[in-house]
């Protein structure tokens, strides 16, 4: 054989890889992933299609008499949304996206452009619900010893990490890039990841699961800072206790001095608290940050009490100390020498401690994937990329990732964030560049697509796409809006 191949007329030549197979109709290439379907080259990998009625019909009750014959599908049949998961990608980008699908929704002809984007400019923002100290802002976060991100500004009740990004992926050593890519991929696909913070804690986190900090599983968020807790519960403490100290790493609250205590005519107690007084009844830095009482390092609550003013305090004074999560608490009464003596917590106060705990929501790790889709992948959508950007900004084009809604940042480009737990399992992949592969879908009215210079000749009807073989049809998540609804703009 010479390698010269006389291809029959009905064979097509695949351009997906350099093997460049000639494929006859109804057959697959050497990879079994691309095939010739009626003269067209199609991807045969499982391609994820969302079915709306599976999500919604599953909760419906059979109403057609013979329930056995009814599979739970609504009479009008399932609605389908073609996701980019398994859709494949195009490179170089000037090729039209792998799937450009037309369908009708509420009488409007819609187009969904589906592609798997390869993102170098990407990362995750991680929100860890904890007040425990994980490390100082700007500290490096490491995976396998490699810097993969940093601790960023904390939020109410949560510590924040910013991981990934182009500099960690491609700006450092090969090993750093690989460690970053693996960390992002695991977090995005819902897997557990172990991280360490320089001069801080070790973290074990997974999207949608409680975080473990230095091996301690975090169960509850705090209800608020110490001052906020005083504000919420002051009335419930009135008459049952003389003084309450709510211990918190950020602001420790003292009932008798706090505005809420004053309004309720709580008598001064002469209590002296460690730390720096901010405003009435609010103290900063009563202790060092840590993983104990209210996110401080104290294990003995009395260590933040410097004493009582003998001119104000009185023997028998009742003192409740509680952390902002209600996980730690102690009850004291002053003896004749005005020293606090620990006593059993009275039932009337136990209720308030329980209520603090009840108001602390389950601690979670949230992972938002963030990427810039404003680059060349737009060429797979339209010949004039900026029109896609504008159409998204004007809310004519809706952006989803595996069917999950994406938040688009204001300003230039298409910078998006998506909650990975709202996406189907294992939606993400990677290429060795290293870069993350993420599904992205653009949905817009067909007329708007035509107007932006879309690849009109590549549009395939939905019925045609869902008839393709090797698809995985999965139920749309009930919490996600159906991606085909118009984004609010006029067609």
């Amino acid at each position, binding site marked *: 054989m010479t390698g010269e191949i006389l291809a029959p007329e009905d064979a097509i030549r695949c351009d997906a890889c350099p093997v460049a197979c000639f494929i*006859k109709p109804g*057959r697959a290439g050497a990879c*079994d992933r691309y095939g010739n379907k009626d003269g067209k080259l199609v991807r045969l990998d499982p391609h994820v299609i969302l079915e709306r009625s599976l999500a919604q019909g599953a909760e419906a009750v059979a109403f057609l008499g013979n329930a056995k014959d009814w599979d739970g599908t609504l009479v009008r049949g399932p609605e389908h949304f073609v996701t980019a998961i398994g859709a494949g990608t195009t490179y170089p980008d000037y090729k039209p996206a792998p799937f450009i699908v037309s369908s009708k929704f509420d009488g409007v002809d819609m187009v969904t452009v589906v592609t798997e984007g390869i993102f170098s400019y990407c990362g995750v923002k991680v929100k860890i619900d904890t007040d425990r100290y994980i490390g100082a802002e700007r500290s490096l976060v490491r995976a396998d010893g490699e810097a993969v991100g940093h601790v960023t500004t904390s939020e109410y009740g949560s510590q924040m990490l910013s991981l990934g990004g182009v500099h960690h992926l491609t700006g450092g050593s090969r090993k750093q890039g690989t460690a970053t890519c693996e960390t992002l991929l695991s977090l995005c696909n819902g897997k557990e990841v172990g991280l360490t913070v320089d001069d801080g804690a070790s973290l074990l986190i997974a999207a949608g699961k409680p975080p473990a900090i230095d091996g301690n599983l975090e169960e509850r968020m705090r209800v608020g800072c110490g001052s906020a807790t005083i504000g919420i519960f002051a009335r419930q403490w009135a008459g049952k206790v003389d003084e309450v100290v709510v211990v918190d790493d950020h602001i420790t609250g003292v009932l008798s001095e706090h505005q809420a205590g004053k309004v309720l005519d709580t008598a001064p107690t002469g209590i002296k608290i460690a730390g720096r007084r901010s405003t009435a009844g609010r103290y900063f830095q009563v202790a060092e940050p840590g993983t104990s009482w209210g996110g401080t390092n104290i294990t003995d609550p009395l260590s933040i009490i410097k004493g009582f003013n003998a001119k104000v305090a009185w023997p028998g004074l009742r003192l409740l100390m509680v952390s902002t999560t209600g996980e730690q608490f102690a009850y004291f009464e002053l003896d004749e020498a005005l020293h606090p003596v620990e006593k059993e917590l009275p039932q009337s106060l136990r209720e308030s401690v329980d209520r603090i705990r009840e108001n602390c929501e389950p601690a979670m790790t949230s992972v938002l994937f963030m990427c810039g889709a404003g680059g060349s992948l737009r060429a797979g959508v339209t010949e004039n990329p900026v029109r896609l950007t504008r159409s998204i900004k004007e809310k004519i084009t809706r952006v989803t990732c595996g069917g999950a809604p994406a938040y688009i940042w204001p300003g230039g480009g298409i910078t998006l964030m998506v909650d990975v737990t709202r996406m189907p399992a294992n939606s993400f992949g990677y290429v060795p560049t290293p870069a993350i592969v993420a599904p992205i879908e653009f949905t817009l009215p067909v007329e708007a697509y035509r107007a932006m210079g879309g690849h009109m000749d590549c549009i395939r009807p939905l019925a045609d796409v869902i008839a393709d073989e090797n698809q995985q049809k999965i139920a749309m998540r009930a919490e996600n809006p159906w991606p085909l609804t118009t984004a609010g703009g006029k067609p």
Partner: protein
Amino acid sequence: MTGKERAQICLLRDGRLHLNDGPIDLIVDATGEAGEIGAAYAAAASRFVEILDELCSELPLLRAKAGTGSTMPAGPIARRMTKAVQPFAREVFITPMAAVAGSVAEEILSVMTYSAKLSRISVNNGGDIAIHLSHGQRYRIGIVSGLPDYFDSDSLSGSFDITSEDPSRGIATSGWKGRSFSLGIADAITVLARTAAMADAAATVIANAVDLPGNPAIVSVPACDLAPDSDLGHLLVTRHVGALSRDEISLALSKGSAVARDLHTRKLIDSAALSLQGVICTLQPENSRDWDASSTPVNPRQDREACHA
């Protein structure tokens, strides 16, 4: 687009590495320290992305019939393929493509052993497997006959261990039901050899020999009718095998086992298992470990007919 942009590289949930580029699909498993596994996986991935482009640059040569003094291609994998099929070139039609899967597996195995110290490695290229075992280590290999819809331990029709004491470091399976075309009718021929490339080539040759030419139960068509660029050209490849009688099965298997015995005598292979319509025939050197292939037969009725060559 090059392999670097095209290839998909994924760490599977269980810690194995999945590498895919065009028709090449590898599952890599390693046992050892985490740092060493990471280094080996990184080396595997960076070599992997070059392979398909490298092979395709010499594809016409690799698809051409091998001769005893074939032109040697340039790439290391291509050379390994060509060397693996040369011992068969005198007797049968064969092209270096008969050893492509095993040769790729071996290449990845070699960069991994070079770059890290691991106690065990397996590189599985669609059933053609290259393994590394340090002293005292072993791999348990399961054999599945046919392709069950649902896989569990009951689907295994046999299993055996390869230990570091054994000479074999390559395992390959060939048959008409597999991804590649076969000239024979065997459901599956599994071969153990010193290298994965040799196991791959030998499994192909033995599978091609298990045949009943002219039998009306066999449907075969020219390879080029299915894939215009197949290296098998106009040769007839098996597409369907209807029910065969016991005598027919025995006759077909005996042709294959004769070839397998010959290859063993020539020290090209270590052992082989031949499977056709529920009958499994094994060939192995004496005093070797057990192949318990007949202990869980595909078809219990035919269990007693399992022969040991």
